[in-house]
């Protein structure tokens, strides 16, 4: 394999337990998003558009759909002769499978993969977030600052700062302190979980961390503090733009609704930064004479005979006559019957919603409804 300047390692093994039934048989990065995509499409497209063509994707939880979805990476232009995308599941060495116990151990266990390319820099990413970013620019910043590690940070609202890993920096953007979910944050620069390391430096740290039995082998909790402790040059790379963690039902719904907001900073229609995805084969959408579509996004293969308002409708969805869908996300191949009412809900893939069903948030709670098979069965019986 040829030497590469920078290899990306995409952590896609997470369970996403706060997405409940959506992640029962599906890893979080494979969750449908934005009418056409899966969450991981954003990170993979960012790699491809940034010119980073060698990407290791570390899967673990319920990897079947994700692994076959990624395939050899053709959809993101990552099917290359030298490099390209490689799926890296946990494997057994001599006697037993060594599961990834933490984000850092996952990288540690895949040193052989990285050694093939003998990179100068390693870019650590997660497949959990919705954002567009040019990693090449971050790499240039890292190189110019002659840093050992760069951490991408974004300004968050002060009232939210306690939910994030907060970076305290000096005026040169050197990180002098790192606080995980601080009660009284000193700063509002939150870590985005995007790191660039000099591979040599990272390798040593991972070895050291591996020997530490008390470590949780996590980048944020263990590796970064170690870096700071050892007085390595760690800098913060300020990111401006849309960035959203879609780890809860509420945030997943909000991020989808953001796409319908004219003022949103997330532009998926930018031909200079396309978001690639695996394209299923469908004819164009058909909007019938009985339909009424307003302020919504609809994908191919849909047959719409009802009312859509402020909603995101994925491929292959059918919506029956007399049905009203408001402020909802309808995932791929869902079949919505006639005279159904759906408001502020996420309807999962492949589900059939029977005629006349009403789905809306409980009064006084106003929480997004995550529709499940159980709900449907209850209604039928």
């Amino acid at each position, binding site marked *: 394999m040829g030497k590469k300047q920078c290899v990306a390692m995409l952590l896609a093994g997470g369970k996403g337990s706060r997405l409940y039934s959506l992640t029962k048989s599906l890893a979080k990065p494979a969750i449908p998003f*934005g*009418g*056409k995509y899966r969450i991981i499409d954003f990170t993979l497209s960012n790699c491809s558009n940034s010119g980073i063509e060698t990407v290791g994707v570390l899967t673990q939880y319920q990897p079947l759909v994700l692994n076959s979805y990624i395939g050899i990476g053709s959809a993101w232009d990552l099917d290359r002769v030298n490099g390209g995308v490689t799926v890296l599941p946990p494997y057994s060495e001599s006697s037993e499978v060594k599961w990834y116990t933490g984000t850092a151990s996952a990288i540690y266990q895949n040193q052989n993969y990285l050694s093939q390319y003998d990179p100068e820099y390693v870019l650590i990413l997660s497949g959990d977030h919705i954002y567009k970013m040019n990693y090449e620019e971050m790499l240039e910043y890292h190189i110019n600052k002659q840093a050992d590690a760069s951490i991408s940070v974004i300004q968050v609202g002060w009232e939210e700062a306690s939910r994030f890993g907060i970076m305290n920096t000096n005026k040169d953007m050197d990180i002098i302190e790192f606080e995980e979910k601080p009660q009284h944050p000193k700063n509002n620069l939150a870590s985005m979980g995007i790191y660039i390391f000099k591979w040599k430096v990272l390798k040593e740290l991972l070895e050291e961390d591996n020997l530490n039995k008390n470590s949780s082998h996590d980048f944020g909790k263990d590796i970064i503090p170690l870096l700071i402790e050892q007085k390595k040059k760690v800098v913060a790379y300020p990111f401006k733009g849309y960035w959203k963690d879609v780890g809860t039902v509420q945030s997943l719904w909000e991020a989808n609704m953001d796409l319908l907001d004219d003022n949103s900073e997330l532009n*998926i*229609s930018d031909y200079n930064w*396309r*978001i*690639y*995805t695996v*394209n299923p*084969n*469908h*004819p*164009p*959408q*058909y*909007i*019938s*004479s009985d*339909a*009424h*579509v*307003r*302020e*919504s*996004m*609809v*994908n*191919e293969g849909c047959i719409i005979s009802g009312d*859509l308002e402020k909603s*995101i*409708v*994925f491929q292959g969805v059918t919506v029956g006559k007399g049905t009203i869908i408001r402020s909802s996300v309808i995932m791929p191949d869902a079949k919505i019957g006639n005279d159904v009412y759906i408001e502020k809900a996420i309807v999962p893939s492949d589900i059939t919603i029977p005629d006349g069903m009403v789905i809306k948030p409980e009064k006084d709670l106003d929480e997004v409804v995550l529709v499940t098979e159980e709900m449907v069965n209850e209604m039928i019986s």
Partner: protein
Amino acid sequence: MKRSMLGIIDATTHLEDLEELTAHRTLAALPIGGRYRLIDFVLSNMVNSGIGSVAIFPKYQYRSLMDHLGSGKNWDLDRKRDGLFFFPASISDSNTNGIGSFNHFAANIDYFHRSKQEYALVANCFTVFNMNFNPVLERHLASGCDITEVTNNGNSLEVYLIKKSKLINLIDSRDATGYTCMKDVVLDINNQLKICEYEYNGYAEKIDSISSYYRVSKDILKSNVWNQLFIKERPIFTKVKDEPPTRYTSTGEVKNSMIANGCFIEGDINNSIISRAVKVGKGSSLKNCIIMQKCTIGENCQLDSVILDKDVIVESGTVMIGTANSPFVVRKGTVQGALMNS
């Protein structure tokens, strides 16, 4: 042993009646159905019928056809063995009046000799249909025919099934027999061959004029036609484009229309087919239109029975009215202004 077919698509057809739409591109590459090109139907049918070796024989203006097909990957024909072949004709070849020019085949006879398949399905490029060709092969074998011609409502669909060795004979003996193409053979009552017909009674329409293009496009909006053309188990494949889902705004109503991805709709659309990346401005009204990819229609425009080729810009306030029998056709890449009348 399973009998095998190879697919031949004659993409040489060039018709004066479609001049405005085929000035820049060969008929096989004519955009249709919002996201397809005309050849996608017969090509997908072949692939869905298990045919793994398909040779395309184009002649005129085939650049966009070549660009569309690429290596054949989107039709699952990017193979190590067999796959998609592309055999352009030399311009000096005279036109034949039927599908399957023997001169054209002769110039590429190696493909026939090297192919391991026993039977050849020779088809035109301009029929809109979704058909499984395996029953045709079964009938052909059972009846012992030399050539099976597929018909629809009694008319020839210009799709022929013939044993490959027999086809090679016909190609080699063309000077002696005077047959220039498959149609010549079938029409000659003295042809010494057993010609049978296979009647396909599903939807199958040829595009050979602006009016048939317009009529067939409107047909696709009908659910009984749609259900015959877009079948989950036998999808129509086409080149993949990474367009975001279509965005509908608070203005504009869309009724009885087929809309491809990447569009931004602010106006009213009725009984129309809109291809990808089309923008329709506020206050505009489109009725009975076929709008090809990347057109931009400004605000307060009125279009009725109009066909816009790719990349057309319609300035705000423009009115264009055609009729069902004679739709108003606008050439690729032009700008239509409110004050222009052509």
